[in-house]
């Protein structure tokens, strides 16, 4: 295996705020330092790029001292939350912008797909745009000609090929654009979340194509996405970026875990609810527990999840109704349960503090992010206390076989094949 990309001390500084009269004085100052053979004065300052905290400096380091190498044939997932420096890194690697300091050395041709359909001209036909877009991406005319039929076939818009692309539906547009890009012949392919567009069938096709490029043709792929399941399926290595630096580099599964640890710690796995004075019954606190300890935001499909809820009952209630439900990332209720599941009726209860532990069995939910909502109702007075989306957790599946398990349920079945001829 040989190294195809070598990144050394790579940093990128950005200036915040708008460019105006202030920048000309900085330019002059910078120029004056250069003339005297001194170092750029603005490189010494600058802060770590953490977008949520307010900084003091006008300059921030979007990337700071990155060092890594990528071997030929690797599929590397670059992950990190918004503002971690992913896009800046991709921009530098695809030569859209230059680094502030440091260098990148590359062996082979790089094709980057930071966007599909770059340079598409709305007035030109699909055919003309295939040539134009292909050339922009670095293909020679004869290369495009040779692959033209393949591209049209892959895109599935053959019928509209001589119609201006401004008449295309957005889906067709994206299909055509991705088809061109997918047929690039470069040693290194850089892809940035282009899969977020198009319908499910086409997304699958794109992922499949990228896998072919990597596994089938042995080309190097760099992939940036927020879709952990896609990254997990497509890549074998991962680089987790955090505030402009590398926080993890290595196998993709560990990189994904690192990312999830870094980013979902802020979302609530436990919550204390506000106390209400005149409530008949109320939620006090709730927490997600895994193996006896508090959850760090993510849970594997093979782990059992326990939801602990504390209630305070302030007056005697004849018909108490407690309930909870889970919603997935598309905000659909996937699961509902209430107290009648256990008692077969609403509960008669005296004042006091109560706790319940609800066990969600392992291997039951498909990978997605879920929120937990709670409710309690006094069925006599119909007074209701809700806490919607109170808790959050991410269910992940570290499977090498699937990009995503479709549907809502995750029941591994026993596929025990028996040879019936014997």
């Amino acid at each position: 295996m040989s190294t195809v990309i070598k990144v050394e001390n790579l940093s990128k500084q950005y200036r915040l705020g708008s460019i105006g009269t202030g920048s000309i004085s900085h330019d002059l100052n910078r120029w004056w330092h250069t003339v005297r053979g001194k170092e750029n004065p603005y490189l010494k300052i600058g802060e770590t790029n953490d977008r949520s905290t307010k900084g003091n400096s006008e300059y921030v380091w979007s990337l700071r001292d990155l060092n890594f190498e990528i071997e030929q044939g690797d599929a590397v997932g670059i992950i990190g939350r918004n503002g971690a420096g992913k896009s800046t890194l991709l921009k530098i690697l695809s030569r859209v912008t230059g680094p502030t300091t440091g260098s990148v050395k590359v062996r082979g041709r790089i094709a980057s797909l930071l966007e599909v359909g770059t340079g598409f001209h709305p007035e030109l036909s699909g055919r003309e745009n295939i040539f134009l877009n292909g050339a922009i991406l670095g293909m020679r005319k004869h290369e495009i000609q040779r692959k033209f039929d393949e591209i049209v076939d892959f895109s599935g818009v053959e019928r509209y090929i001589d119609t201006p692309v401004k008449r295309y539906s957005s889906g067709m547009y994206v299909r055509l654009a991705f088809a061109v890009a997918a047929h690039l012949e470069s040693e290194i392919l850089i892809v940035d979340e282009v899969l977020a567009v198009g319908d499910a069938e086409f997304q699958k096709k794109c992922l499949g194509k990228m896998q072919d490029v990597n596994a089938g043709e042995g080309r190097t792929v760099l992939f940036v996405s927020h879709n952990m399941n896609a990254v997990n399926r497509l890549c074998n290595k991962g680089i987790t970026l955090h505030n402009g630096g590398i926080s993890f580099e290595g196998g993709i599964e560990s990189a994904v875990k690192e990312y999830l640890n870094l980013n979902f710690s802020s979302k609530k796995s436990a919550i204390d609810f506000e106390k209400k004075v005149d409530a008949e019954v109320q939620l006090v606190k709730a927490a997600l527990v895994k193996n006896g300890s508090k959850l760090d935001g993510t849970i594997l499909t093979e782990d059992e999840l326990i939801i602990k809820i504390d209630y305070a009952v302030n007056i005697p209630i004849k018909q108490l109704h407690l309930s909870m439900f889970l919603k997935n990332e598309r905000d659909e209720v996937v699961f509902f349960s209430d107290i009648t599941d256990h008692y077969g009726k609403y509960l008669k209860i005296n004042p006091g503090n109560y706790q319940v532990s609800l066990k969600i069995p392992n291997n039951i939910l498909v990978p997605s992010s879920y929120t937990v909502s709670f409710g309690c109702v006094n069925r006599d007075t119909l007074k209701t206390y809700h806490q919607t989306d109170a808790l959050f957790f991410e269910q992940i599946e570290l499977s090498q076989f699937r990009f995503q398990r479709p549907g809502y349920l995750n029941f591994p079945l026993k596929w025990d094949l028996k040879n019936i001829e014997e």
Partner: protein
Amino acid sequence: MPIDSNTWDIEIKPKNKLFDLQLKEVWHYRDLMWLFVKRDFTAQFKQTILGPFWHVVQPALTTIMFLLVFGKIAKIPTDGIAPPAFYMAGLAIWGYFSACFTGTSNTFTSNAGIFGKVYFPRIVTPISIILSNLVKFGIQIALLICIIVYYNFNGFPYHATIHLLYIPLILIVVAGISLGLGIIFSSLTTKYRDFTVLLGFAIQLLMYATPVIYPLSYLQGKSYKWIIDLNPLSSLIEAFKYCIFGKGLVEPYSVLYSVVFMMVSVSLGYIIFNRVEKTFMDTV
């Protein structure tokens, strides 16, 4: 792929070398250059009825206007050349310069969308603008030929000279100046938009400081002639007319001045452009 660990195909560094011409790369992208030319031409006239004919309408109407204002009202002489042919020739070459100049000076701002997403040698874009304006220029020359032929039979007999062969050379110098100045301006506008505003009216004013609507001979002995002489385009436009009509005031030293001006502006432009293309995405 080479296994030798010392050879890298691409090195991405904070700055390009001062005079890294990247000619090999530009050559690799020659198809793209051609497609840009084709796109500019075809896309401009999609959904029009007259199509490329519009390239003729604009200078034709301007010529008529000039005939009225400068010919009839101001009574500026045209060196004994048929006035419509005189204006048309001046407008064609001036139009080529101004279209190239404004086009290339917008390289970074108007292509920010593409440049921000994909890499190709940025210089491809201004060069393709220079080339696609050549098509427009060609169409206007066709109109000029029609005018000359018409006036040949109507009082202004035409005699072609060997000087016609110099026209391509003049075009190269004009293209060079517009490219050089254009890329200098495009590099400046990425950060300071003031230059866009400046350019908008400067190019209009510059036309009057260039012998488009008057012959250089008309200024002979005038005190302000040095302003016109300072303009590197003056001698070129006069020379262009001289090559076509065989009439005009072309001095070798002023042509030399224009050629030197072109070389300096192209080199300077290339250096600045080379610097800016690396980081313009952060400032544009």
